[in-house]
């Protein structure tokens, strides 16, 4: 079963008087349980592709299905719901809420969902924080954590809602090689244990080694898989 199905995806950006063709008719299917890397040089369109899959950006034309739902015509509220319930996002710069502690950052999406009691939310968040090896730092604010620790919190936050799909945009770009390795190992373990589909963009060869599937993108087109 495919978690993501993309057909003839086109994304254009107006830039003054010119139009930038970020994606030029992309076709892609991502099966459930994939550990996929999208790679390409800077400006190739990999972040744009990830953003459209993650319902952060919308396509100019073409079809994008995530978790079986066609996202190209969905209103903002529905897209936000998809991001909250179906997709987890890990950013290059971690992007934790600065005024919340590590534990509270992981609780955040669960509280937005509003399905669990406060105590259950706390319990689940602690569990995930523990699974990424950072339980001792649950009370620390992001400013008090190292880069690697922050990214672990971001991973826990992305996974705590049991999403079908986790998207990671250059997840190790701001980490040293040791931390980068450990983060990738963690993501790989999550993929193996939970069957969560991981798609990450990178142009780091070290990262590519961990991917089971590699999709190459160049000038807005898929050139190899």
């Amino acid at each position, binding site marked *: 079963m495919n978690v993501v199905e993309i057909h003839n995806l086109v994304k254009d950006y107006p830039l003054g008087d010119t139009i930038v063709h970020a994606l030029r008719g992309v076709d892609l299917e991502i099966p459930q349980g994939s550990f996929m890397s999208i790679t390409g040089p800077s400006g190739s369109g990999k972040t744009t592709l990830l953003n459209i899959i993650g319902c952060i950006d919308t396509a100019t034309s073409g079809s994008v299905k995530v978790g079986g739902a066609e996202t190209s015509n969905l209103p903002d509220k529905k897209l936000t719901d998809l991001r909250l319930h179906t997709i987890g996002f890990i950013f290059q*710069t971690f992007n934790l809420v600065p005024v919340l502690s590590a534990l509270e950052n992981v609780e955040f999406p669960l509280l937005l969902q509003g399905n669990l009691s406060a105590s259950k939310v706390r319990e689940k968040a602690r569990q995930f924080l523990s699974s990424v090896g950072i339980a001792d730092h649950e009370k620390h604010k992001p400013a008090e954590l190292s880069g690697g620790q922050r990214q672990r919190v971001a991973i826990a936050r992305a996974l705590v809602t049991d999403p079908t799909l986790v998207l990671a945009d250059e997840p190790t770009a701001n980490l040293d090689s040791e931390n980068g390795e450990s983060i990738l190992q963690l993501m790989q373990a999550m993929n193996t244990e939970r069957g969560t589909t991981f798609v990450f963009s990178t142009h780091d060869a070290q990262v590519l080694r961990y991917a089971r599937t590699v999709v190459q993108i160049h000038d807005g087109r898929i050139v190899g898989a």
Partner: protein
Amino acid sequence: MLIWRLAWRNLWRHRGLSMVVGGILFLGALLLTFGNGVVSGMERGLERQVVESFTGDVVIVSDKQEDDAVFLSMMGKEVEPIYRIGAIRALVDSQKWVRASLPVGKNMVMALNDAEGSPGYIFLLGVDFAAWRKFFPDAFQLQAGSIPGPGLRGIVLPNGANTQLYQQMGQVFLPEGIDDTSLLPTEARKVDRSRIRHEVVVMGYSNTMSSSDQRMKVAALGRYRALNTIWGKFALTDIESYRSVMGYLRQDEKVVLTQDQKDVLTSNDLDDLLSGNADAPKSNVASDTLAQAVVAGNDPLWNLLLVRLGGVGADEGARRLDTLLKEAKLPARAVPWNKAVGVIGSMAMLIRGALLGFAALLFVVAGIVIANTLAMSALERTTEIGMMRAVGAKRGFIARLMLSETAVLAASFGGAGLISGALLVALTPLLGVHTGNDLLQMVYGGEVFHPLLRPQDLVVCLLELALVVGLASLYPMKLAASITPLDAITRE
């Protein structure tokens, strides 16, 4: 809970901005509260200075009276006498929301100069002194002499009237047996003793009555406790002396007419009168006063009936009394006090309007500054807000977060401003800021600056603060809620 937690922590994190917005809210709330206190103090003061000292809440006038400004009419225009005052007063006093009523005579009179110089002009109020003192217990401060007792006659001169007469006639007036010129207005203290008088000869103006001159003993000197520059021009005399001066029938003058005589006097048919068929009544009372007697049914004549109300505002009270008088077909109508005092009422409304206008301007300026500052804050937090949206926060959540932050600021800083404003209102009278200027007295609420906050004023301040904050938050909320995850990523 999440939203409040985020709100508090975000405010603490952006302390500088919070202090800026908080400072504006504090100052705005303080000025708003103090301003409301000044307006309330002014209204209370006006009530004391005008309503409780001189006019009552409503003034009943003759239905023939064209001008509402009966107290301070232009050029001292004549105030029409009220007929059938007995029936009118009975109707007014029977209303549960009427506390008391007081008939007075009021007109401009001429003071004749026995030294063949120019005459003087003053306003004259004809009163039953005992009833007048009961109606306005604190209005007048005696400085010399005594108020005439029941059945006694005399004129009471406030120092404003005395000054005016001195300026016009070159004469000053003191009660008999008192030669202390220190009691006189400053400019008159060095007057030659030959110009001191203990009696004043007064003559009334009337278009319809035959007025006469009357020699009046100066019974007392004094001053009005409030707005003395304005009310000080109103001398007081016993009502019978007033009636003599104005050519009104006095209480002791009763005219008994036959029905035929009444018919003749009220007849519009001149042929009847001129043909000699009429049996003209013979009397030594002037014919116009005879006509009065017929029409008034021997009711004594007054010009105004002052009314104090209980639990009803002046405008509403006047409206109700007007309706009652019309329904009873009585020849009178009701005027609220602020119209009866003409320019003073307008001035008071003008000052009130200016103060409220200033408050409104404060609103707008504070609102714009707050909105701009919060909008800037929202834009500075694009990445943070965008990331929350990326993780699954909806636009509504972001809008509520912004509103919560503003609400916390409003509650803390705005609340502190309200409390400080209330304290300032309470402490200001203790400073004893004093003025003798009548215009400032209107703003001050009396001789001493005395702002006042009633419980309902505090509620109004709270609502006004909530309104300003609510309106000022709308744009920043909309701006923050429109931030997309893509905006945040683009910024990165």
